[in-house]
């Protein structure tokens, strides 16, 4: 696993999402309350950028194009049209930055 810097810690507010491109992957990184999560950053339905979507109810991300929803901690697709789950990754803070571990 290689670690990749996402942004400065202060740039990611609680209840929000940002993303980072790692190689050919887009990774969405979330701060829910005080904990960080990371998932694939593109909707499994039609590849819309989830970082443009809305974090709902403290633990769901809604795709900005077709309103599919995913459970952020597990990556599980919970609203159609998405059917496939998102992969999840480890995200953490260190030295004032947000990081994600991706192969």
């Amino acid at each position, binding site marked *: 696993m290689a670690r990749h810097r996402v942004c400065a810690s202060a740039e990611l507010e609680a209840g*929000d999402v940002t993303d980072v491109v790692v190689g050919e992957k887009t990774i969405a990184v979330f701060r829910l309350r005080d904990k960080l999560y990371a998932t694939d950053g*593109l*909707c499994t*339905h*039609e*590849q*819309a*950028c989830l970082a*443009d*979507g*809305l974090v*709902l109810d403290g633990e769901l991300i*809604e*795709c*900005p*194009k*077709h*309103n599919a*929803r995913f459970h952020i901690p597990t990556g599980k697709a919970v*609203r*159609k*049209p998405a*059917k496939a789950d998102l992969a999840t990754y480890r995200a953490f803070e260190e030295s004032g930055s947000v990081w994600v571990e991706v192969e």
Partner: protein
Amino acid sequence: MSTDNATWYTCDIPRKELKTFMERADLPAVLHIGLWLLLTVAAGLGATWLWDQKSLWALPVFLVYGILWATSKPVSHETGHGTAFRTPWINTVVYFLAAAMEQKDMVSNRWQHARHHSETCIVGKDYEIIAPKPPKLWENLLDFLYLKSGPLLLWALVVHSLGITTKKDKDLVPADEMRAVFWGARVVLLLHLVPVGFAIAFQTWLPIVLFVLPQFYGSIFQYAFSMAQHPGLQYNVLDHRLDSRTVYMNPLLDWMTLHMQYHVEHHLYPSVPFWQLKKLHQRVKDQLPPPYRSLTAVFAELVPELLRERKNPSSAIQRPLPAQGEVNASGNAGSN
């Protein structure tokens, strides 16, 4: 032509601000859709009473009832997106009800509408193009009374109830969703057959007029709203400012269409609930083509355009883009 990479033009608006437009709540939709349901039931009861009195006043009241019933179209649209209410189960229940009133099962309708947002007015992909180029104007005229869509939708309910997967289904709906389509269609078909059964049993047309026909005699306004959304504009483009219209309407029509006349904004930001579209419009309108001032203004431009397209299918109304927007219009997602 396809939009598989899911990028589309969006306006220059900071994410923090956009999030305020996307936020969800139950109350605005409870008030709007609750009032709609209340008025529909009241008009239905009033029309039934007048029918029973054999009063000719029943006719205009039935017309009002039908127009209210047909407002199920934007209601099913908003709840189908899942944005109308914050609470998911309320969205689902109202979506089922409103889609049934439109003679649609909610599962196949959702997949068809998802495609409409992926491939808006992309010929051969978007099944919600109601004015192809060249247009079949008699079909459009019939559909002001639901006389094209209505029979086709009823037929689709019958076909799906029999467990048949159509060519269109194969293109739109994942195979493992078809079971839900079939059962959804059976329930909706049953809801339409029960009034027919009552009509036969009690030898009265009333149940049919109340529960089967209102979409037909009441759809004129909703179809006019639909005609104002995309027809006559450019097809096969990736920029929703060019294939969709925003139209100012009076407060009553605004209410009847659930603010869906801000249709450019809706396609740019499908996550923004209907009750926030007017505010969003005010925020981004300088980045969009000028809105039409009225429904009349739309049809004054649209009717000659459709007549032109009968002879020249490549014709389209060109919407003027603001200078700032033109920079962003090359198919790139904007900064949101």
